[in-house]
């Protein structure tokens, strides 16, 4: 029963994170395309992003959604292509989720701090 609840929760988390990603990717691309119309240097970008709480929250959420979504999708790919499944695979994927979250948030900190 516990395993079943885990499976359903993973499915729900993947759908929820997909919805968040759809919004985040759209906002990210739209902002990028708009911002670089006149040409922007790295220094100019950092000048605008440093100290922005809104940007930190937006990209923090973006990274969280990626860290949730990607490992769950990869879990299905591993099962269907290599036949890998079970607790050891899940533990490795949890580590992968932490890896994505850590490096993603680190990148966000570099942008806004």
């Amino acid at each position, binding site marked *: *029963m516990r*395993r*079943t*609840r885990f*499976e*359903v*929760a*993973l*499915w*729900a988390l993947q759908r929820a994170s997909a919805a968040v990603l759809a919004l985040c990717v759209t906002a990210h691309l739209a902002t990028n395309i708009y911002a670089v119309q006149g040409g922007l240097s790295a220094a100019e970008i950092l000048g605008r992003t440093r100290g922005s709480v809104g940007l930190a929250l937006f990209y923090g959420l973006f990274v969280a959604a990626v860290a949730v979504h990607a490992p769950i999708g990869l879990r*299905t790919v591993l*099962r*269907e*292509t290599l036949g890998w*499944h079970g607790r050891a695979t899940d533990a490795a994927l949890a580590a992968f989720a932490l890896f994505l979250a850590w490096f993603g948030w680190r990148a966000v900190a570099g942008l806004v701090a």
Partner: protein
Amino acid sequence: MGTIEVRVWRGTAEGSYQSFAVPRRANQTVLDLVTYIQRTLDPTLAYRFACRVGMCGSCAMTVNGKPRWTCRTHVARLDGDVMTIEPLKNLPVVKDLVADLAPFFDKWAKAEGSFKPTAAPGSDFVVVKPDTAARVAADAGIECIGCAVCYSACDVAAWNPDYLGPAALNRAWTLQNDVRDGGKAARLSAVAGDAGCHACHTQQSCRAHCPKGLNPSAAIAGLKRAALGALLKGEL
């Protein structure tokens, strides 16, 4: 009317194709071709059929790469003068065109695909109104004949040998919507495991190939929603 070249799989998992020239006839079905070969050209050919009228689900085979019910598939509707007939995919082959359906039906059992009565013996008939939402959902999938065409067409069944498959999940969904059934909690747990309804990618190959025009993908989506609802209510 000429002849048609029929390439037939001979063997089990290992084997090869054998070609036969079969006379064309009016209103000829693919099952007619196979029957002609077995009765006239090579009596050692193994194949399976029973009702010949699209009711029993016995005669499904892979025809030109696609799973079909052969008794209701007219040769004239398929293109070309060469036809390739193989056993159903995603199942072990017993011999020639006969697939072993035991794993397919074992998964119906794993999905708790049997009716669990709640009424005591001798009690009166339950009144089930046909226009209720639950009955409409059950009726949408109830005409499944268990031919395994959907299972043979399913990529997830090919990739994940434990996947319960569209037919078993469709059956489970019809029972989840049967007001007389008392096995709903156990069934939802059975179909929400790691090779159950959530493994479906909604590619809808089952829907595209079902000879009865059913939509197992919709049934699976219903199970996903029901499982999530049960999880949120603490009933899973």
